[in-house]
Structures are given as C-alpha cells and as structure tokens.
C-alpha cells in the first residue's frame, strides 16, 4: 500500500520554481531519504505535503486520500507529522507540555469537562501525562520534564522535536534535516535514535538530510532533487554513484 503518492506537484514563488512537476511515492513502512543541494526544493516539498503551502498544480495522496485543501491541523489528525529544520518548539512551555499539547489535541475533552474538572478531564490529562513521560524516556529526556523547552541544550531540543512529532502517533513522519548543526559524534547518536524510532514505532518515514552517512544508513530508498526536480531515485548505493547527483553537488566540469 502506498502511504504517500505525490503526482506532478508544482510550486513556484514569483518567478522562482521551487518544485517542478515532481512525482514520487512512498510505500507503507518504508524509509525514504531525500537529498539535494541547498535550494533544491526539499523543504518546500514538506511544506506542500503538510498543507503549509498550496501547490500550483498536482496532488498529494495520503493512503489514497487526496489532501488538496485539507487544512494543516486536520492533516495531523489524519496521521501526518513532521519536524522542522530550524527547531520550532513551544519555547515557553515545559518539555512535557510540548509533548502533551499535541496529544491532548488528538484525544481531548470538551469545554465543560475543562471548566468543571470532571472525571473525563482528569483521566485524559493523566493518560497524556503518563504517555508523555514514557515518550520522553524513550528519547532520554526523562528528568527534564518540567524544564522550559527553551532552556534545553541544542541536542536535547532536537530530540524533543522528534519526540513531539511522534506524540500524535503519526502514520507518516517527515523529518527535515535532523542533523543540521550537529558534529559527527552527535550525528552518530542521532542515527542510533532514528534507527530506534524506525524499529519501535511502525511508521513510514521520509527524511531530508545532507549528511550522506546518515541517509545511506537509514534509508531503504533515496531520491535526489535539484532545482525542484527529481534527478535520481533508487537504492542508497545506486544514487550515490549516479552521475547527475554528483554533478548536482560538485558541478559539471569536475565529473569529467
């Protein structure tokens, strides 16, 4: 079953084409890596899938359902989640609240139970609290539940961003440059974490990354983009050797 089916997707900003007639698909439980130089349209693609941008043409199908015109917040309820390249945590909330807020958005209670603190309010809050703590534990963030998200060191913030993305129990997870700003050691830790995520949560993953080592280790399949177009697709080792991919990264003359 195809989890994600992108058909002829196009998006331009003024005269600049960010995504040009892009078609690709992702099978359920598959991990697909997307590589490409800066400005290749990778993040734009994520923004199109998560409804933050409207495509000029083409469509995105999620388990066969056309996502055209579906507002962002509803996509989360359908099972699409993501992380952001430049962290976008809820900085004035605690670490735990960063996780429980999306959870309570999925399974909540009405206004009356909130005002009168009914049994339903208590039970739902307690369940989110418990699940949130378990999730934080999985990402080695336990003990930091009550700290402000903004007070965490960078590496912890990155892990919290991942934990938050998983808090809504998505079927499709889009990870945008998880290794941005990390040193090789931290990249190794990140790879381990991402592998654990892949094993523990049965989901479909699309990951954008510049770190070749990470992409090659994690992905079942890799797609390379340049100037908004798909220039190669296949197993990690095939894509790595692809002439067009090397050209895109190193320039034409160097290849000859």
């Amino acid at each position, binding site marked *: 079953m195809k989890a994600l089916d992108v058909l002829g997707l196009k998006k331009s900003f003024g005269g600049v084409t960010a995504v040009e007639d892009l078609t690709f698909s992702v099978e359920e439980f598959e991990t697909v890596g997307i590589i490409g130089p800066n400005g290749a349209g990778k993040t734009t693609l994520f923004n199109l899938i*998560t409804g*933050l941008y409207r495509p000029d043409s083409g469509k995105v199908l999620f388990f066969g359902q056309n996502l055209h015109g579906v*507002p*962002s*917040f*509803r*996509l*989360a*309820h359908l099972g699409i*989640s*993501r992380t*952001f390249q430049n962290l*976008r*945590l*809820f*900085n*004035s*909330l605690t670490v735990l*609240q960063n996780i*429980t*807020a*999306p959870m*309570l*958005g*999925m399974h*909540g*209670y009405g*206004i009356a139970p*909130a*005002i*009168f*603190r*009914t*049994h339903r*309010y*208590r039970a*739902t*809050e307690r369940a989110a609290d418990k699940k949130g703590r378990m999730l934080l534990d999985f990402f080695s963030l336990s003990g930091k539940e009550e700290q402000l998200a903004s007070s965490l060191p960078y590496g912890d913030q990155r892990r919290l961003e991942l934990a*938050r993305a998983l*808090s*809504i129990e998505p079927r499709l997870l889009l990870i945008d440059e998880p290794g941005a700003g990390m040193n090789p050691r931290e990249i190794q830790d990140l790879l381990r974490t991402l592998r654990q995520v892949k094993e523990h949560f049965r989901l479909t993953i699309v990951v954008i990354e510049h770190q070749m080592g990470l992409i090659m280790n994690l992905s079942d399949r890799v797609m390379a983009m340049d100037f908004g177009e798909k220039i190669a697709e296949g197993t990690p080792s095939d894509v790595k050797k692809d002439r067009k991919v090397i050209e895109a990264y190193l320039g034409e003359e160097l290849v000859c």
Partner: protein
Amino acid sequence: MNFFGSARRFLISSAIAYVILKALFLSGFLTGYVQQIILSSFIVILTSLGLNVIYGYTGQFSLGHAGFYGIGAYAAAFLGVHFKIDSVIAFIPVLFAGGAAAALIGFIVGVPILRLRDDFLAIATLGFGILVRVLLDNSDKFIEVLGGSRGFIGIPKLVNIDLVIGTTVFLLLITRNLIFSRYGLFWQCIKDDELASMVFGINSARMKLMAFTYGCFLAGIGGALYAYLYSFLHPSNFDFLKSIDFLIIVIVGGMGSITGTICVGFLWIAIIEGLRIALPPQVLELRWVLIPLMLIAVMMWKPYGFFARRESRLLGLGKES
C-alpha cells in the same frame, strides 16, 4: 465535586479576603467613596483578566478591550432600565447578558480580524475601539435612553460587595480551570508558534476565536458591574485610553499570570486613587508624570512583569490546590 475540590486553597483565600473586606465595609470605617473604589478594582481585575487571556496567554494583541467593556456596560444598563430591574437577584441574568453581548460582538468581530497578526491586529482592534466610542457618543440618535454624549443616566445602583466578590471568585475559578486545561495549553502553543501548533493538530483559528470571545465576555461582565456600581455611563469611560489601562495591568502583572493581573489590578487602582489623596490638588495632574515614570522603572527592572508566567500557590491559583 471536582470543581470546588480542586480549588480548596483558592476558595479559602477568597473567603478570608471577603470576610476582611465585609467587616471593613460594615464597620463604617470606610467612606462610601472608598468602598466604591475598592469594588471598582475588582471590576478592573476581571476586565484585565479577559485581556490577559487574549493577549497574555494567546498572544493576540488587542487595543480595543475597552470597547467590549463598554458594550457590556451599555447592554446591561439598557436591559436593566428597559425591564425595570430593581433587585440584586434580578440583576444577575442582566449581568451575564452584558457579558454575553460583549462575547457575541467579540465573536462576530473576531472571525475576520483574528486572521491578522501582531501590529495589523493591533490596528484593527484599535479601530474597533474607536468605532465603539463613536457609536456610544451618538447612541441617543437611535436609542434615546442610551444618552449619547450626554451619558446614560438613571441606572439603578444594584452592585454590592457580595455580588462583586462572588462574581469575581466564580469567574476567576472558571478562568483558572480553562487556562490549566488543554485549551489554555493550546492558547500558549499558538502564542509561541502558531504554525507549529497547526502542524500538530491544533485548530488555531478556532482556539484564537475562543480565547478572544471568552476575554470579551469577561470585559462585558466587568462593564456590566461598572454600570450598576456607578449608575452612570459616559462614552469617555470606554475610550482608547481605558484599553491602555488594561494593557498596562496585564503587562506589568505578567503576561500569562492570573496572580499578576490580580495584584497589579489592585496596585494600579491604589496608586491612581492614592495619588489623588497624597498630591495637593494644584499638582494632582502630576500623577500622569509620576505613573509613566514608575512604568518605565518597572519595565526596566522586571521586563516580564512582576509575576512573569508564575502563579501564587498561596492564593491557590496554580493548576491544583
């Protein structure tokens, strides 16, 4: 019941405050004028709390809060006079009707303008505030009894200490419960990062509208109490400068702190009225030099307000108590 069970400490501290004030009022130690000032501070606190929900928690910068305060006041006054209300019990539905009127207008206005962000929203709400003021100035042209720029006279004086404190405690408790529920959490998510909150399943348009409508409801209740405390309304009491008063209380108290709004609400009234007594009449207007200087000092010393985002455990305003 959980509603009261989770608020034991808050209800106890409220009861103590009530007993002390009631004793002071009955002792004859306070003049009617001072009593009126004390009651008016509760009204200011309720209204500012509404703005704190809108701006402090949800981050929607509103400069038109006094407009909703005025709508509540005029709506309640009109209903009371129209139906010849003359008892405190009969006033209670009128009080909530005043809140409902402000909430309804807040909802209708909120649908289009809450799409705007930051400065743009500030300008739109500022425009709304001015619009209300102009409408009230000319209100006698369509409904004679509202009095227009001459003011609305003949409102029965039905507000007493029991009603003011009862209403304040009840609405404070509801507000606290909302803020510490998932709704309050969503409001704060939207304030931090609206885009991320949408991606994580929060219907931000709806949540902003809810916060705005509820904040306007509190302003409307405040306005309705005001009308029946002073028994006279004038459009100049609901103009742009009044909105700034509420804004100052929210910011100085702490955006996102109920405790801050309460403490600074009292402090604000105490300073304004205290200076009226302390300063000799010929230099009374020096108040408006001293107060801004104090504000500058406070903002340099405590840029996030006195309570930042903290709540007092003593008053029982935290999540549980």
